[in-house]
């Protein structure tokens, strides 16, 4: 049985693990039980600030603190971090390139029962367009832990996209090395490339098993750093496999699919197809039901990969 841990849990644990430095401050907007910053609060109460249901003020106050040599983690649901407080993130954090790390939990449709109002499927697009912003979308608990550590060690604004749902732990904590801005080669096939991020990495690994049963060997690349994106690994994959499928728990507009397409179109044009939320809002339901409804299952990923492979052969 594969171990499952929500990336928000790993985030809370990492804040405690790496949070001993007095420069680190954690802010939350009345969601500390859900974002798991309550773990940090228990360990370091004097450096935890509840900023209330006032995300605009939280983001800008985080910037003000960061200007005083603090490393500030500002946490709330991804919807409000990237949407409600967008202009604060832009003007007060990114423009002056301040040391604020946005720990954005509950991203995507796997939020589940809360429904569309709380399921951001636009945040990668919104955050990656901002100059000075680094955008990370970890695949599992191990990657989340490493991302938090890297964010602490790296100066400047970070957006870390995290989920509510417990997801498979696909990396081994003992030998995992996180390299900011580097894609991870998950499997080395050459028939077609599947580029994925976040929870969709484990879904894609499952899709890969389905494809291999049919004699298709996909190359799977995990892009945990959406920005700056690893161009080299993508260009190499385009050259060697001739077709790329992108998979994300995000709108197909503006997210990973767009970021990959930008690199491929400019450097090595090959067919690209995108799997994601197809320009519509989410809805209430169990995460597993929603994944089926929105086509984010291993089965659908495998179908789309085969379609892409066919169109490549017919060219």
């Amino acid at each position, binding site marked *: 049985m594969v171990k499952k841990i929500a990336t928000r849990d790993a985030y809370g644990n990492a804040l405690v693990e790496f949070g001993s430095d007095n420069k680190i401050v954690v802010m939350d907007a009345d969601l500390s039980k859900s974002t798991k910053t309550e773990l940090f609060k228990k360990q370091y109460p004097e450096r935890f600030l509840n900023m209330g249901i*006032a995300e605009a*003020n939280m983001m*800008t106050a985080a910037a*003000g603190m960061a200007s005083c040599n603090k490393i500030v983690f500002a946490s709330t649901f991804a919807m409000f971090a990237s949407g409600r407080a967008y202009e604060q993130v832009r003007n*007060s954090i990114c423009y*002056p390139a301040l040391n604020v790390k946005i720990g954005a939990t509950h991203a995507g449709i796997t939020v589940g029962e809360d429904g569309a109002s709380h399921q951001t499927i636009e945040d990668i697009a919104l955050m990656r367009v901002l100059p000075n912003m680094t955008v990370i979308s970890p695949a599992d608990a191990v990657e989340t832990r490493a991302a938090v550590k890297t964010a602490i060690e790296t100066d400047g604004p970070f957006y870390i996209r995290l989920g509510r749902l417990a997801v498979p732990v696909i990396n081994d904590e003992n030998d995992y090395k996180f390299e900011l801005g580097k894609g991870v080669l998950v499997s080395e096939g050459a028939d077609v490339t599947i580029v994925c991020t976040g929870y969709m990495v484990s879904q894609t690994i499952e899709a890969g098993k389905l494809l291999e049963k049919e004699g298709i060997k996909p190359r799977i690349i995990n892009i945990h750093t959406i920005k700056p994106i690893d161009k080299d690994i993508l260009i190499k994959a385009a050259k060697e496999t001739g077709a790329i499928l992108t998979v994300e728990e995000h709108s197909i507009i503006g997210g990973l699919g767009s970021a990959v397409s930008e690199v491929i179109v400019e450097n090595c044009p090959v067919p690209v197809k995108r799997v994601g939320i197809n320009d519509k809002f989410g809805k209430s339901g169990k995460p597993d039901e929603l994944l089926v409804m929105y086509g984010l299952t291993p089965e659908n990923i495998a179908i789309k990969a085969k379609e892409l492979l066919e169109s490549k052969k017919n060219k």
Partner: protein
Amino acid sequence: MEIQKLKELKRYATIIRKDIIDQVYSAAAGHPGGSLSCADIVSVLYFKEMRIDPKRPHWEDRDRFVLSKGHCSPALYGALAERGFIPKEDLLKFRQASSYLEGHPSMKLIPGVDMSTGSLGQGISAAVGMALAGKLDGKDYRVYSILGDGEIEEGQVWEALMCAAHYKLDNLTVFLDHNGLQIDGKITDVLSPEPVKDKFEAFGLKVIVVNGHEHQQIVEAIDEAKKTKGKPVMIVAETVKGKGVSFMENEAGWHGTAPNKEQRDKAIAELDDLLAKLEVE
């Protein structure tokens, strides 16, 4: 306060007003009205109150200033130039592509600017963040901020004030530049934030009302703010938009309009007259 110091503050305020006119004139763009209305507050902060060192703009223990009404950058830049943070001749490059003096303050580009501002309602939150950091670190620096009275129509301002009161930020002193005008007219006609004093008090701040052009009153209010424990202080400064230039006073039209050559010369002549009077006083 000594007569001599008071005279000096009046003189600096007038020089900053001249700097404002020349910046906006040379840029052929900018915001003279609200810059002129806050010039006296800025002169008290930069030439009397704030613990700052032009040689060390990033000094950790310095007092901080956040111009939340960032469009009034000419007042701040004038003060920074007169205080020695930036060369005075650079003021004439205000808002130009070749210059670092952005239309709205940029902390990355301009020595002495503690926070990038311009999008209304955000500066005050940044000031709250600085004050929180000061408390956390047990530092004795103070944080000052100036809000516009049109700016307080932004909801974020009230989030920030709620937060400042909740965390008992007595190291934070905020000024309201209460000149009564915003771009589209009187604040009471556009979207009234009145009664401001009652609202600030209801939000948990200590409120002191002063004539925002009387340096003595501003200094006394700051002294009182420094003595206040357990809550942030809001100094409501009753001001005149366009103060110091006769034809700009109380005219909303001068919010964001640059003077032409003739108007510039007339404004400078008026301010020079004022300087001459201060000399013989």
